[in-house]
C-alpha cells in the first residue's frame, strides 16, 4: 500500500531502511503485518458467518461441544502458536541489535550529550566536537554513548536503527550502522518540552577512507 503512496520513502521512514537493525525491524513489520492481516480477516469472516448463519435446533450438549472447540482452537491454540512464532523469530533479531562485543576489534565510539534542544557530539579518541551532526564510516558498527544534561530525550535515526532513551544520570549505548554512504536524519523521540519538535540531527555516513581523512583534518583544525 505504502509503495503506491510515496514508495516508502521519506528521510525518516522506518520502512526505507539503510542499516542492519532498521532492515531487520522493517522485515519484522512486513512479516507481522502479513500474518496478522490474515488472522484479522479470518476472525472477521468467522464472526460475520456466525451472525448470519441459521443455527437450526441445537441442544445443550452440542452447543457445549461447539463452545469448547471454538475456545480451545481459537482462544488457546491460535494465540499460543502465533505468539510463540513471533517470539522465536523476533527475540533473536532483537538480541542482534544490542551493542554486544564484536568478534574482533572494538566498534568506534561516539559520545552524544542531549540537552534542550540540541545534540552535542564528541569523539572520545580525538578532541572533535560537533553539534546536531554525527559523521560515521559507512559499513561499520558504531556505538553511540548517550547522556543527558537535563531532561529525558530519545536518540532515533529511523533509517539506521531503533531508538534509545537518553536519561539523566545514566549512560545508554545504542549501536547504529549505515550500509551505504549518505545523510540520514534523526530526531528526538521523547517529549522534552517546548523545542521538542525541532530537535533534529543528521548522521553523515562516508566511506572508510574518507572518514579517516576527515578525522585527521578535523583533529588538525582543533
Amino acid at each position: 500500500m505504502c509503495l503506491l503512496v510515496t514508495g516508502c520513502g521519506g528521510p525518516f521512514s522506518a520502512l526505507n531502511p539503510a542499516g542492519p537493525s532498521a532492515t531487520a525491524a522493517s522485515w519484522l513489520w512486513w512479516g507481522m503485518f502479513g500474518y496478522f492481516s490474515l488472522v484479522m480477516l479470518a476472525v472477521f469472516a468467522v464472526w460475520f458467518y456466525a451472525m448470519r448463519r441459521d443455527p437450526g435446533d441445537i441442544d445443550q450438549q452440542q452447543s457445549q461441544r461447539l463452545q469448547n472447540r471454538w475456545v480451545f482452537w481459537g482462544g488457546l491454540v491460535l494465540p499460543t502458536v502465533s505468539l510463540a512464532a513471533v517470539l522465536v523469530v523476533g527475540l533473536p533479531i532483537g538480541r542482534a541489535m544490542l551493542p554486544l562485543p564484536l568478534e574482533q576489534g572494538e566498534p568506534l565510539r561516539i559520545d552524544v550529550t542531549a540537552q534542550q534542544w540540541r545534540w552535542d557530539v564528541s569523539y572520545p579518541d580525538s578532541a572533535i566536537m560537533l553539534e546536531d551532526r554525527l559523521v560515521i564510516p559507512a559499513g561499520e558498527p558504531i556505538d553511540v554513548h548517550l547522556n543527558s544534561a537535563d531532561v529525558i530525550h530519545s536518540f532515533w535515526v529511523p533509517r539506521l536503527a531503533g531508538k534509545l532513551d537518553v536519561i539523566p544520570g545514566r549512560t545508554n549505548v545504542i549501536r547504529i550502522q549505515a550500509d551505504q554512504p549518505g545523510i540520514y536524519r534523526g530526531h528526538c523521540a521523547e517529549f522534552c518540552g517546548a523545542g521538542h519538535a525541532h530537535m533534529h540531527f543528521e548522521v553523515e555516513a562516508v566511506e572508510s577512507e574518507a572518514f579517516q581523512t576527515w578525522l585527521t583534518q578535523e583533529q588538525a583544525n582543533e
Partner: protein
Amino acid sequence: MSELRNAGNRSRLAQFDRVWGNLPGWGQLSAVNHTSVGLRFVVTGMVFFLIGGILAMLIRTQLALPEQDILSSSAYNQIFSMHGTVMMFLFAIPVLEGAAMYLIPKMIGTRDLVFPRLSALGYYCYLFGGIIIVSSLFLNMAPDAGWFMYTPLSGSFYSPGLGPDFWLLGITFVEISAMSAGVELVVSILRTRANGMSLRKMPIFCWYILAMALMIVFGFPPLILGSILLELERAAGMVFFEVAGGGDPLLWQHLFWLFGHPEVYIIFLPGAGIVSTLIPVFAQRPLLGYRWIVMAIILMGFISFGLWVHHMFTVGIPSLALAFFSMASMLVAVPTAIQFFAWIATLWTGRVVFHLPMLWILGFLIIFVAGGLTGVMLALVPFDWQVHDTHFVVAHMHYVLVGGMLFPLIAGFYYWLPHVSGRMPSDTLGRWGFWLTFIGFNLTFLIMHLTGLFGMPRRVYTYEAGLGWDLFNLISSIGGFIMAIGIAVLILDIALHFRFGQRARQNPWNADSLEWAVEMPVSTYNFASLPDVPTRHPMFEDPTLPQKIADGKYGLADISHGLREIYGSRAGTGKVMQVIHLPTNSWLPLQSAAIIAVVCLGLLTKFYWVALVAAVFAVLSLLRWSWHNGAHASSAPLTDGERTDPPLHSRMLDSPGLWGMVVAMMGNGTLYASLLFGWFYLWTAAPQWEAPTQGPLALMPLLLSGALLTLAALVFRVAVGRLRAGNGNGMQGLFWIASLIGLIHFGLLLWVLLSAPLEPTELAHDSVLTVMLMYLLIHSGLSTVVTAMQAMRVQLGYVSLRVPYEPIVVWPLWVYTLAIFWLAVAAFVLLPMGWGAA
C-alpha cells in the same frame, strides 16, 4: 407511570418512593442513591468527553498541514497533555464507574450500593477535581509535560509554573473517587447479592466489574503515591526523582506505569463486560463459555499487573527483562482470544436479532481486533524500538481504547437507554451516528499507523513539509472531523429520543438479567421486594418476575418503618444472612468533598496554612460521618421485638463494614508496598544513591514506641476477643487504655521523627524515610482516635454486646498499623544495619 403499578400496589410503592427518593430542589445535592449518583457520573463524564474531544479537534487542526502556526508550541503541549488527562481520568474511568454503580445493584437484585454516602463523596471529589484540572486550561497554565508527567521535565526546575501542580493535586483528588468506587463495588458485589445468587449464578457483567473494581483498588495506589512524592519534590524540595541526592527519574516511570498499564484493562474490562452482556441478548441464547470467560477475566487481571515495563522498552533495561516483559505482554492475547471465541460460539449457536446496539458491537469487533493485533506487534521489543513514541503508537492506542471502551460503551448506552427514559432509541439517526463515527475513526487512525512507520514522532506541534507525512496527516484530520460529526449526531439522537422515542415495553430486548425486572423508567429503590435468584437467567425463566416484584411477593416488602433496607448475603453462596440498614440522603459527602477541595486549592495556591486548617476540618467531617453509621441509634434503635431472622447487620460480627475496611486496607497496603518498592528501587538502582553512615533514627526510642504500639493493639485485641466470646466486661476501659497507649506511642514516634537529623531536601534516603514516618504517624493517630471514639460509643450504648459490629471493623486497622510499623523498622533500620555490618 410504569405499567407495573396498579391499584393493589400503588400506595405501597408511593411509600417506597418517599423513603428512597431524593430531597426536592437543592436537596438533590444530598442524594446518595446509586441510580442518581451513577447517572451523574455518566453525564459529567460525557461533558468531559466533549471537552477532551474539542482538544482533539484542535490537535488535528494544527497537524492537518505542515508548518502551521495556529497553535504555539506551548499551547499545543498544554492541549495534548490535557487531551490525554481528560480522556483517561475524567472521562473513561468515571463514566465506566458510573455505569457500574448504576447497573450493579439492579443486576444483583438489591436496592442500592452498600456504602451510599461513599458513592456521593466519590462523585463530588470527581466533579471538583475535574473542574480544578480543566480550569487550568482557561487560566492558560495547564500542565504541558504530557499526561505521563515524566520527570525531570515535570519537576520544578524545568516546569516552574503551576501546570504540574494542577495535574498532581487535581488527579489525586479525582482518585479518591476511583478508590471509593472500587471499594464500594467490590463489597457490594460480594455481599449484597439476591438470595441464592451464588458467584457462579452472577451475571457475567458483575464478574467484569468485580475484576475492574479490584484492579482499581490495587492499580491506583502507585500513581497516588507517585503524585504525592512528585508534589513533595516540587513544593517542598524533597528528593525522589532528582539524580543529584540519590533519586531516579525512572522511579517515576515505574510508579506511573505500574498504575498506567492496569489502567488500560480497567477501561477495557467493563467494555468487554458490555459486549458479553449484549451478545447473548441479541443472539437470544445464554452466553456460551461462561466459565471460560470468568477464567479469562481473572487471568487478565493478574497478567495486567506484570507488563508495565512494555511502556519502558526504550529506557535501556537489561535484555533478559525485556524478553520477559515481551512475553508477558503478548500473553494477554490469550484471555482476550478466549473471550472473542466464546462470543463467536454464542453467535454461532444463536439466532441474531440485529438492532442498533449490535451495530456498535460490530464496530467494537473490527476496531478492537485490529488494535489488539498491533498491540502484539508492539510487544515485540525490536519492532517497538522503531515505532515507540511515534504516531504508530498513537494509532494503536486509539484503536484499543476507542474500540475497546467507547464503542461498547455506546452500545451499552443504546441498550440501557429504555431503562432510564422508558423510551426506545430511533434507528435512522442512530445508524447515521454509527457510520459517521466508524468511518471517521478509521480514516483518522488507520492511516496514522503509516504516519508512524514513516517516522513521525508523537507530541510534535508541527512538522516540515515534504517528509512524506503531509497527505497522511491531512487524511487523519479530515477523518477526525467526520468522527466529530458522528459524535454530534449521536448526542442529538440520544437527546431527541428522550422526547420523541417510542414508549418501551417491559424488558424491550427480551434480556435475561435482573436489571430488566425493575420499573421503567427506573425507580430509586429498583425492587419493591427482593426475590430469590437461584438462576443465571431469571428473566428467561420467569417473565412475570417484574410484576411479582412490584406486587411485593418477595422479601423486605414492608416499608412502613421508613428505613432504607437491603439484604446482606454470603460472599460465595449468596445466601441471605442479614438485613443492612443504609443511610438516607446526607449533606456529609458534599460537605467533606468541598472541604477537601479547599485543601487542594490551598496546596495549589501555596497558602499552606489554609490547606492545613482545611485538612483538620476534613478529618473532623469524616469522623462525624463515621459517627452516624448504621449502628447509630437513629438508624437502628435497640428495641425489644426487633427482627432476628435475618438479624440487622449491626447486631452481627460479619458486616459489610468489615469487608469495606479490609478491601480499603488492601488498597492502602498497595500504596505502602509502592513506597517500599521506591525505597528498594532507589537503594539498588539510583545512579547516585547515598545513605548516611549512621542510621538517623534513635533506635531505642523507636523500638520502645513499637513495643507500645504492639501493646495497644493487644489490648484492643482482648476487647475484640471478649466481644466475640459474648463477654462485654470492661470494654470501655479497654478501649480507653488502648487509645492511651496508642497516644504515647504516637508522641514517641513523633519525637523520633522530629529529633532525627534528617535532611530531606538533600538526600533521597532522608526524603523516603520522612515520608515513611509520616505515613506511620497518620495510621497510628487514626487508630488512636477511632479507638477513643469506640470508648465513647460504648458509653452511649452504640457499641455493646448486642451491637458488636464496630470494634470488629476497627480491628483490621490496628493489625495494619502494627504490620506497617514493624515492616518499616525492618526495611529502613534493620536491613541497612545488617547491610552495613556485612
